[in-house]
């Protein structure tokens, strides 16, 4: 006598087997990406924990801006930019290990500078106010440094599996685009042009605007102050030896992301914006020939009761009239709201699954409270593996 809950799915969606990925020795990197606030950090940490506990892998998770309480329970109280072993896990016989770290973008930037230049030059760069501002606030720095750190961890070869979280940004694509943008900026012609118009002035492409450029430089100087340009100029001079290096490093990491050992997991919440972003990202990954392993649809609501919202609400109204069944009437309204939400979420999710019918998907149920500890991560890990 019960009617089925309507599903937005037009056809069955292949289910994502997270355990197969985590257990596969050929998979060395898992990247969790998606738009802001969908659960990238939580998913990354839950997957890493599961890889260590269930699949005996020596795992490191690179988190970025984790929520304070989650960071604390992973022992990430210090921002020291190196992985620390998480002791509170239950690896049992499998013998896996979990190491966790939190990206410190400023320090990572410093490390890049140090490896590319001599200590005197490095000291000069560190003291430069423009460098100081840029290494902590420039948009794209975080993405670049996340890539850089991934490259470093990978090069150390100490781990069976590296799970990477990606920076909180509105668009998931920023993770792929920002490093190249920053590298272009640092290698940039514009930078040289602005600081030494005469040097590049002969180039045909710029002759037309060279004159206005000179005006522009003066104007910029007037507006933002000559000091900034002087700092910038000092920065560029000190960095001269590294030009090219930035782009090269970004390209290297990009190649790692294209390799077979890497699996991308796209995380989305069942909300229109997040699902739209996920679709953009999936399209982009396939253009870049980067391997998309599947979609994690996080914070999804479910109901086990096959009663439609309409029918439930009508029954609740009936009980109101009868009187004496207040608690049941309210329980029915709670169910109706859940049924409506479930139906809405499924139809939102179908926007993605209809466009990418071949992408395996797993749904993770919304937990009643936030995830702040190892137990919570284990619960999410179990949900990720429920097939």
């Amino acid at each position, binding site marked *: 006598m019960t009617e089925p809950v309507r599903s937005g799915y037009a056809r069955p969606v292949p289910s994502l087997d997270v355990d197969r990925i985590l257990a596969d020795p050929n998979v060395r990197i898992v990247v969790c990406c998606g738009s802001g606030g969908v659960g990238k950090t939580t998913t990354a940490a839950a997957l890493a924990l599961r890889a260590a506990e269930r699949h005996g892998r020596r795992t490191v998770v690179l988190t970025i801006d984790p929520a304070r309480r989650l960071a604390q329970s992973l022992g990430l109280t210090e921002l020291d930019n190196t992985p620390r072993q998480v002791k509170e896990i239950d690896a049992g016989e499998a013998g896996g290990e979990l190491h966790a770290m939190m990206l410190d973008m400023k320090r990572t930037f410093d490390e890049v500078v140090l490896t590319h230049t001599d200590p005197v030059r490095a000291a000069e760069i560190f003291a430069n106010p423009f460098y100081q501002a840029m290494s902590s606030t420039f948009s794209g720095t975080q993405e670049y440094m996340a890539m850089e750190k991934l490259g470093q961890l990978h090069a150390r070869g100490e781990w069976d599996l590296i799970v990477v979280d990606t920076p909180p940004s509105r668009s998931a694509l920023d993770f792929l685009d920002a490093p190249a943008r920053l590298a272009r900026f640092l290698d940039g012609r514009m930078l040289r042009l602005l600081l030494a118009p005469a040097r590049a002035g002969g180039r045909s492409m710029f002759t037309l*605007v060279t004159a206005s450029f000179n005006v522009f430089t003066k104007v910029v100087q007037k*507006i933002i*102050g000559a000091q900034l340009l002087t700092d910038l100029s000092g920065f560029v001079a000190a960095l001269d030896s590294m030009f090219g290096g930035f782009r090269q490093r970004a390209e290297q990491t990009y190649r790692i992301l294209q390799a077979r050992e890497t699996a991308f997991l796209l995380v989305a919440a069942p909300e*229109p914006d997040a699902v739209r972003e996920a679709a953009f990202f999936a399209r982009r990954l396939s253009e870049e020939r980067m391997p998309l392993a599947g979609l994690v649809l996080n914070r999804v609501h479910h109901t086990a009761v*096959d009663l439609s919202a309409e029918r439930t609400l009508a029954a609740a109204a009936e009980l109101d009239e009868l009187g004496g*069944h207040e608690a*049941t009437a309210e329980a*029915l*309204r709670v169910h109706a709201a859940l049924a409506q939400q479930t139906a809405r979420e499924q139809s939102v999710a179908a926007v993605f699954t209809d466009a990418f019918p071949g992408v395996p998907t797993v749904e993770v149920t919304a937990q009643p*409270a936030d995830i702040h500890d190892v137990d919570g991560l284990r619960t999410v890990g179990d949900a990720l593996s429920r097939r």
Partner: protein
Amino acid sequence: MPGSEQDPRAAWPARLHVVTGKGGTGKTSVAAALALGLAAGGRRTLLVEVEGRQGIAELFETEPLPYEERRIATAAGGGEVRALAVDAELALLEYLDLFYKLGAAGRALRKVGAIDFATTIAPGMRDVLLTGKVKEATTRTAEGRRVYHAVVLDAPPTGRIGRFLNVTAETARLAKMGPIKTQSEGVAALLRSPMTSVHVVTLLEEMPVQETVDAINELTALGIPIGKLIVNATRPPLLADARVTQAELRRGLAAAGLPTERGVVAGLHAEAKAHQTRRALEESLRLDLAELGRPMVELPLLPEGVDRASLDKLTAALLTPQ
């Protein structure tokens, strides 16, 4: 209705309303609803966005907004809402033109990416330009009268709001003199005056509430006036203090002619319990917010989502004395 004649807009006295909050909490929806409410009764308001997101156009289902003030909606009683998407590059050009008459050269510079470059190397400059434009609109007059009764800014999220609004400190570091310096001082003065009010939108979830607390502390330290806490997407208080038993549910289901088999009863019972757990958490978050000692406004969760039609419900809730 005599006695209730007081204009509900008296609760929103500022001229510049800055709406912030964690990403996705409803900043754009709330800013739009507020702009509509403050325009009611023949007034004119300006709804401004500064992040290049075209969130306003999306909400009102119009073409992307140009860098130009355009009527986007009419409000109850003949009011008008105009919208503006401020573009930092164009604001810089407009600004350069004002002081240096760059003309065509300015456009050429834009083509080669120089303007973008200039706003990139000095991120603080971008914010000065954006807030400068907001200030200009807020204080603009025509024939001795204010052009806008109120300006509502769909602002950057809580994580960046302090830096965004704290223009003077940032630019004083970059610009020791010159027009930008003068301009940023004017903006800073407006933002610290009673003409401005920063409202923080939150959901009853842990991270948004945490970010709200952090933002309030940060803004307080910066001396920027804080307005209301806007608790968005709240649900009706079902099963507030009822204890629900399976036996009771079975009787109720039977009375309503619904199936009473085990699965249904146990399922509804579990859902009721989960709902109560969630509610208890929301209650404690509400208390955390109340501790901040700011006026709070609650907006309902709109099951159909937010569009032009349902926006009126948010407007009504914003203007209902609570």
